[in-house]
């Protein structure tokens, strides 16, 4: 048992993990550490190596170099499969099997015995409103219902660590909500959730900790707030009410503004380092501009992400 120390050992650690495929390096000496009891985001554009990383954590792929440690012990998902839940990016179930049988089988794969798997599966089906479908074949269910069955299969053995690869992709809005609630519920019960996504808005709302990777390399990792503070810069949104006054000259002052996105009646500014927003406000007013909005904003994760990854990598 782990001692209740203030900074417990990370639940998951990657130590310079690499994976090469014929012709390219998918993951390049990636190190990261996931603390217990957090929602952790693995972010990156398509092709960044997120799925490969997750597959190495899950022991589906063997790293060419480096080590994976889960629960402070060497070995990945297969060794600890009874304590890890895994939802792959591409989902599917045995189409011809009955719903309950699929769940019991997948529960057994995670190391719980048939009777318990059955009880828990029945409980979950009840909770997600699928009880009357339990003896139906999977291919008789709607796609949304199949997605729910798949969530259940991931959580059936009540794992301490959940690894979800693009959990929100291809979900209908109702199931996306179920997924989100489930993740938060797990978090409140002290579980750790690692999920990958390329949708920053989601990560921004859910993650406490995150790691951004591109082309197999880590760009930044840490707590969301810290990342925003160090990489966010200062972001100013200005709305005009008719008269622009001498705004153009103020925006052109490199000592105050490093970047402008000017829409005429609306502008987004990035402050030069050390610049005081109050000074900009003062100069705009004295130049005769009429303002309807003057707001200091933190950069969105999306903005940080694009700045770090570069527009060309996003397109890829």
């Amino acid at each position, binding site marked *: 048992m782990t001692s209740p120390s203030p900074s417990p050992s990370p639940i998951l650690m990657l130590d310079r993990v690499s994976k090469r495929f*014929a012709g390219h390096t998918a993951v390049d000496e990636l190190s990261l550490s996931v603390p217990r009891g957090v929602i952790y985001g693995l972010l990156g554009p398509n092709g960044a190596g997120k799925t490969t990383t997750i*597959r190495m954590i*899950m*022991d*589906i*792929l*063997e790293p060419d170099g480096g080590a994976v440690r889960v629960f402070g012990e060497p070995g990945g*998902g*297969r060794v600890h*499969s009874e304590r*890890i839940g*895994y939802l*792959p990016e*591409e*989902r*599917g*179930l*045995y*189409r*011809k*099997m009955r719903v309950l*049988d699929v769940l019991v*089988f*997948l529960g*057994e*794969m*995670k*190391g719980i015995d048939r009777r318990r798997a059955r009880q828990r599966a029945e409980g979950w089906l009840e909770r997600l409103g699928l009880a009357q479908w339990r003896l139906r074949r999977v291919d008789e269910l709607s796609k949304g219902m199949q997605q729910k069955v798949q969530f259940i*299969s991931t959580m059936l053995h009540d794992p301490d660590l959940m690894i979800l690869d693009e959990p929100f992709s291809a979900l209908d809005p109702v199931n996306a909500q179920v997924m989100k609630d489930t993740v938060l519920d797990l978090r409140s019960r002290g579980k750790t959730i690692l999920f990958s996504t390329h949708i920053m808005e989601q990560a921004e709302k859910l993650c406490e900790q995150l790691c951004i990777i591109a082309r197999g390399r880590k760009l930044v990792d840490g707590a969301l707030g810290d990342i925003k503070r160090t990489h966010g810069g200062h972001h100013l949104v200005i709305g005009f009410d008719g008269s622009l006054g001498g705004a153009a000259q103020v925006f052109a002052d490199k000592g105050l503004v490093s970047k402008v996105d000017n829409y005429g009646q609306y502008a987004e500014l990035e402050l030069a380092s050390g610049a005081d927003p109050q000074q900009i406000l003062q100069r705009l007013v004295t130049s005769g501009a009429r303002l309807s909005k003057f707001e200091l904003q933190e950069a969105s994760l999306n903005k940080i992400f694009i700045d770090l990854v570069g527009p060309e990598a996003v397109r890829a």
Partner: protein
Amino acid sequence: MRKIWAVIRREFVERVRSRWFWVSAFLGPLFFAAIIIIPLHFAGTGGTKAIVVVDGTTSGFGARVVDSLTQGRTFTIVARPVPHAGLLDSLAHEIGLNRLDGLLVLTDRTVETGAAEYRAANVSSFRDIDELRGVLGRLAVNARLERAGVDPATVGQAQIRIDLQTKKISGSATTGESSAQSFWLAYVMSIVLFIVIAVYGVNVMSSVLEEKTTRIVEVLVSSLRPFELMLGKVVGVGAVSIFQFAIWGLGGRLVLSQRAAFVGSLAPADVGQEAAFQLPPVPAATVAVFLAYFLGGFFLYSAMFAAVGAMSSNEQEARQAQQPVVFLLMIAYLSVFALANNPGSTYAVALSLVPFTSPIAMPVRWAAGSVSVTELVGSLALLVIGIAVVTWIAARIYRVGILMTGKRPNLRELVRWIKTA
């Protein structure tokens, strides 16, 4: 171990629950009976052939041939015309119109040199040709003996009909099995082995493919090692095939014990003929050899089929990729006549030792003639080694293949898959 067990149980339960399984449990034997009996039936009893004997002999030889053929049951002699211009052409026309099955041309040279001619639409029936050759040969010898001054009565007495009884020697004990029965047993076993290994091998392949296309395999492989998963599948499907055999075996017992009733109800017209056909007694040792080689063949081939499933992305690709495996299995199956007719030949011995062909070749040789214990043990040992090597290679292809999507690998990529640690 508990996880492998769960995989085995899933494969078994899901298959035995399917309609497909019970259809083949009940219709399988009928299907086998049909594909075994129908061709032999057509080859064996073609009914009587209506032929014309064109008699160009001057010694009365033609008349004796007609008498003799009429006594047999193979031919009906429609006419015995003397040759004249245009006769052969008009008769050939009749044959073309299917009003006549054939014509036999006899001349005085038949007795002198043994030359005769038989023209027919179908000259590949061994039974017809044997009958003609036998009758003509016997009568030609008689005619020549008589011409040399031997008393016709003496000739008649000198003739004896040989009834050659064949008994198979197994070890040093003469069994009650006749050569026909041995051949039958070998023939039936080869068909059953071929079809069941192929069908259940393809079952393993589709099961692998299903998990690959639905991506369930990712969840499974993150819970147990790919090799364990493959092993569980092969054993599970194998258990289904054994269960299928058990049903067939018990069903067969039941049918045989009630045979009189069945034959009576199914084929009342042919009762006389059917009753004469005895099913060969199948010795326990033969059953054991059959099952041992079935299991060996099944494990060997289903490992290959599993690899084929793993390297394909859809049913269509898999159907193409499985062809080399099926061809490999067919080599021994297509050699069944050679194996049964000459079980001691170098070719037969080679086939029964090489692991890819021995699962069919050895049981056939075993049934057709006796095989020494040394050979049997050697062949089984090679089969076990073959299974180990093939499974090792297949498992490596499987491990990489199940996670691959996109185009099927070429040979060089396969070799790289096998080499990757």
